[in-house]
C-alpha cells in the first residue's frame, strides 16, 4: 500500500533489467589449491566476506567467511580451500531477469551468488543485494533525469522555437448527438496541454471550458469544431458550429437558463450552467450567434510568462462569492 506508485516502478525495473546490468564484473576469485590461511588477508584486503573458487574460467565452488570461521574452529592448519568450500553452488545466469536474483536471495538467504554465462558456463561476475539496490537506484536516476529533460523541453518549447511569433494550433472535430464519445476532444486537448508542460491550473481551466463547449455542440448541434491556439501568454479557443444558433444570448448566459432536452438532464448536464462555467474559466469570452446561422464561441485564457495561470486570484474570488 505504502507508496504504491514508486513500488510499481521498481517492480517494473526488476523484471526489465538483467543480472549482468547490476553485477560486479571484476570478481576477486581464489583457486582450489589456495591455502585456507591466505583467506583472511584476501577477505580483509578486498573487504569481502566470500568469494568464488575457480579453475581456469570455471566455477568449482564458493568459500565464505563462515567456512573460514569453521576452519579456524576445526584447527586444521594446513587445509586448502578445496576441502572447505561449498561445491554445489547456486548460480545465476547473466541474462536472467533481476527478479530471479531477488527471489533467490529471499529464498536461500545467501549473501551473494556467482554469475555465469549461460552458453559457455564461465564465471562472469558476482551479485549481492547491495549490487541490486545500487543498480536499481542508478537506473531510476537515469530515467528521472531523462524525464526531467523531456519535461523541460516540452515546457520551454516557445523559448526553443526561433520565430517572431509562435503559435501551436490543435483542431478537434466534435460529433453532434453522440453522447458516447462526448468529451473525447476535450480529453485529447487536455492530454496535449499536459504534454506541453503547461501548468495544471491553466490546463484544468482550458479543459473545463472546452468540455462544456463540447457538450453544447453534442447536445444542440449536429457537430462542430474546436480550434485551440497555444501561444506565449495565452490560450485561445474557437468553437464553431452550424447548428440552430442562440436566439437570446443574454438569456442564455443566465445561470440556470436552459433549453436542453430531458435526456441531457438525465445525464447530469443541461442545467443551464455550461456557458457560465466557460465564463468562469475564461479571461475573455465572446459569443457570436444568430438563429439558423450557427454559433461561434471565442474564449481566451491568459497565461503568465512561464505558463502560470493568469486568473488564479480572480477565480478564487469569484468562486468564494458564488458560494455565499
Amino acid at each position, binding site marked *: 500500500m*505504502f507508496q504504491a506508485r514508486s513500488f510499481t516502478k521498481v517492480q517494473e525495473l526488476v523484471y526489465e533489467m538483467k543480472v549482468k546490468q547490476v553485477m560486479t564484473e571484476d570478481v576477486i576469485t581464489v583457486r582450489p589449491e589456495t591455502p585456507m590461511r591466505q583467506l583472511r588477508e584476501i577477505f580483509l584486503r578486498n573487504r569481502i566476506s566470500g568469494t568464488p573458487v575457480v579453475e581456469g574460467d570455471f566455477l568449482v565452488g564458493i568459500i565464505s567467511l563462515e567456512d573460514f570461521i569453521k576452519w579456524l574452529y576445526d584447527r586444521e592448519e594446513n587445509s586448502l580451500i578445496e576441502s572447505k568450500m561449498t561445491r554445489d553452488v547456486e548460480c545465476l545466469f547473466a541474462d536472467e531477469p533481476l527478479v530471479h536474483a531477488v527471489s533467490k536471495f529471499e529464498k536461500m538467504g545467501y549473501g551473494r551468488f556467482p554469475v555465469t554465462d549461460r552458453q559457455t558456463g564461465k564465471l562472469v561476475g558476482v551479485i549481492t543485494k547491495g549490487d541490486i539496490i545500487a543498480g536499481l537506484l542508478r537506473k531510476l536516476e537515469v530515467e528521472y533525469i531523462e524525464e526531467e529533460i523531456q519535461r523541460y523541453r516540452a515546457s520551454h518549447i516557445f523559448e526553443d522555437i526561433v520565430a517572431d511569433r509562435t503559435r501551436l494550433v490543435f483542431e478537434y472535430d466534435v460529433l453532434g448527438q453522440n453522447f458516447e464519445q462526448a468529451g473525447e476532444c476535450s*480529453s485529447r486537448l487536455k492530454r496535449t496541454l499536459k504534454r506541453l508542460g503547461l501548468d495544471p491550473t491553466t490546463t484544468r481551466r482550458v479543459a*473545463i471550458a472546452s468540455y462544456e463547449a463540447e457538450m453544447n455542440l453534442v447536445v444542440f448541434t449536429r457537430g462542430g469544431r474546436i480550434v485551440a491556439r497555444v501561444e506565449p501568454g495565452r490560450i485561445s479557443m474557437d468553437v464553431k458550429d452550424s447548428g440552430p444558433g442562440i436566439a437570446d444570448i443574454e438569456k442564455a448566459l443566465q445561470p440556470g437558463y436552459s433549453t436542453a432536452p430531458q435526456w441531457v438532464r438525465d445525464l*447530469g448536464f443541461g*442545467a443551464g*450552467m455550461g456557458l*457560465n462555467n466557460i465564463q468562469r474559466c475564461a479571461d475573455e469570452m465572446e459569443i457570436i450567434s444568430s438563429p439558423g446561422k450557427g454559433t461561434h464561441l471565442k474564449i481566451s485564457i491568459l497565461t503568465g510568462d512561464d505558463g502560470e495561470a493568469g486568473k488564479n486570484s480572480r477565480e478564487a474570488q469569484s468562486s*468564494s462569492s458564488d458560494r455565499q
Partner: protein
Amino acid sequence: MRLEEVREILDAEVLTGENLLSREVTIGCGADLMSDVLAYGKSGSVLLTGLTNNQVVRTAEMADIVAICFVRGKKPDEKTVNMADSQGLLLLKTALPMFESCGRLYKHGLPGVSECGE
C-alpha cells in the same frame, strides 16, 4: 485522507484502480449535476455521485478529480469502468445513500469545497 480510508469509511467496493488507494484526497464533493462539479469541484477531490454514465468519468478527468464513489449501490457499465481504468482514476461503489456517504466522510474530517482555498 488516503483513498484507502475513504474506501473503509464508506464500506465501498473497488471497481478499478486498486493501486491508487494509497493516494491522498483533500476534499469531498457530492453532486449529480456534472456542471456543478465542473464549476465548484476542486482538483484532488473525491466525487460522490448517483450518476453512472461515462460523462462522470470525463468530468472527473477534466476537473482533476482523483476518485469517484458511486452511491446507493449503483454500478457503471463496463465501458465507463474501462475509461476510468485507462485514465488512472479510482472507482468505488458503496451501498450507502448520498447523504450518509457524505456525512460519514465529513465526520471523519474530510472537508468540503467551500472550506478549501485552492
